């Protein structure tokens, strides 16, 4: 005998989000390989740039103070890219049809992935900071500067994760999502993340100075180590807000357009 249960009130928006965030965090924790990579990659990059490239780029041993913001953005980009794979995985699985036919705001399933990605990347960021301090990073920031720097980093992770979520929604499969996402990972190399842009050829410098990563890097670096920020802070927040808004709209549009098509 299958007992009957009374039709319940629909779940509130808050409860729906909480359930999907919990689900995505469980997914993250249980995907052991991806979790190990997300923690190992920042450690390896930090050591690589400090001990292998650092000596050549700045024989004074000060390179670690220059490179920390770059490594954080590089890792955040890498860590967020798994959101594209997670979202594409959900969209190609039957479970999305179940969510869509329930009286809930089914787009929350994407929000769940975004928040879980944010949490994962903030942990990875903390690992980078911890290791950086161990290998000689000496920030000059006070409490307010730290708070602002973490704020900018959080905004960046949020923006790029929504961008990856949108990529995951339009990609036909998880492996395609992974492929498209890969291209974005090169952006930090073409910025002031690892070397000052004035050391680049003029044509490349034009690209590097005007792409979103450079002002974000300069802002974080300025907040942490006291280098001049100028108007980078406005550009950084503006770029992040633009990417965030654009990606969110792109993601919502794709989510609703894809209804019932697999």
């Amino acid at each position: 005998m299958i007992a009957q249960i009374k039709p319940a009130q629909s779940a509130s928006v808050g409860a729906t989000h909480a359930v999907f965030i919990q689900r995505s965090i469980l997914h993250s924790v249980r995907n052991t390989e991806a979790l190990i990579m997300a923690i190992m990659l920042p450690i390896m990059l930090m050591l690589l740039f400090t001990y292998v490239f650092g000596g050549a780029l700045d024989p004074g041993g000060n390179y670690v103070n220059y490179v920390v913001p770059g490594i954080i953005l590089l890792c955040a980009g890498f860590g967020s890219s798994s959101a594209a794979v997670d979202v594409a995985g959900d969209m190609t699985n039957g479970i999305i049809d179940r969510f869509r036919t329930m009286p809930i705001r089914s787009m929350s399933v994407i929000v769940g992935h975004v928040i879980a990605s944010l949490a994962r990347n903030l942990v990875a960021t903390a690992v980078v900071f911890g290791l950086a301090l161990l290998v000689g990073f000496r920030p000059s920031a006070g409490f307010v500067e730290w708070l602002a720097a973490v704020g900018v980093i959080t905004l960046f992770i949020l923006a790029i994760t929504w961008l990856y979520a949108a990529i995951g929604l339009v990609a036909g499969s998880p492996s395609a999502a992974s492929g498209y996402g890969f291209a974005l990972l090169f952006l930090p190399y073409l910025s002031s993340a690892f070397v000052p842009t004035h050391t680049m050829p003029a044509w490349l410098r034009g690209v590097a100075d005007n792409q979103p990563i450079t002002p974000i890097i300069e802002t974080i670096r300025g907040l942490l180590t006291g280098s001049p920020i100028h108007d980078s802070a406005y550009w950084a927040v503006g770029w992040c807000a633009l990417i965030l808004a654009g990606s969110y709209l792109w993601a919502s549009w794709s989510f609703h357009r894809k209804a019932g098509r697999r």
Partner: protein
Amino acid sequence: MMTAAIEMKGLRKAFGQHNVLDGIDLSVPAGSIFALLGPNGAGKTTIINILSTLVTPDSGSVRVAGHDITEKESVKRSISLTGQFAAVDEVLTAEENLRMIGRLSGLTKAEARIRAAELLEIFDLTASARKRVKTFSGGMRRRLDLALSLVVNRPILFLDEPTTGLDAQSRRALWDHIRQLARNGVTVFLTTQYLEEADQLADAIAVIAGGRVVAEGTADQLKSRIGGEVVELRDQQDEIIREIPAGSSIREVKKTIDELVLTAPEGSRINIRRPSMEDVFVALTTQEREESAI
């Protein structure tokens, strides 16, 4: 009084140039089991997707549980869907899946936990409750899938090919669950490629092919239209030479065989079987073509 749980009138849907549904009219009484029978590509899944709000029809009127299909939120409150691909979260355990759907259906944490335990028991999954669904067999997945559709009581249940890929035992177990639901007053709308499944479960059957309803009625009514046994004539290599519909009485079958004896090549053998799904379609679709030709 019997009211219609689901009503479709002049339902059409095209994907690009391809007319998937070409004017479907169907009515499903509340509390019955209704089977949509058809081959792959007949439009079964498209109908389920339209009825469950996933796909918007091009034209025609569709009412589900008394609501027009455009009132999506009201419709969603009256239905649950078990799609063709097991709609379960493979990373989570069976229990976590049930609790997640419980919470999303508006149950409190405590209610969701109790309901999950009940359903695990009913669907014989208690021993595997804490295992990740990734490790489940096809039958276990399907049972969990159905359990997820029953977390809260929705009056209409859609099942898209619920037993495809299951062994005979799992199929029978699932059939028992579906019958039990109908006894509790749930309207079950299912699609299947198997004549036997429709025969076993459904109060009414509609056969669709090429996006149109080619026959409608109870299992017995449909069978009488198709005729009885089929006599297969096979050569020495066991290849089928001819298939002859032979009616259902012994007399008719004997007459068919007697006629065959006169013409059959030396060494050929015969086999008598019930009509297959293919025979049904051949019979019904030819009938339809002949009727429309007149």
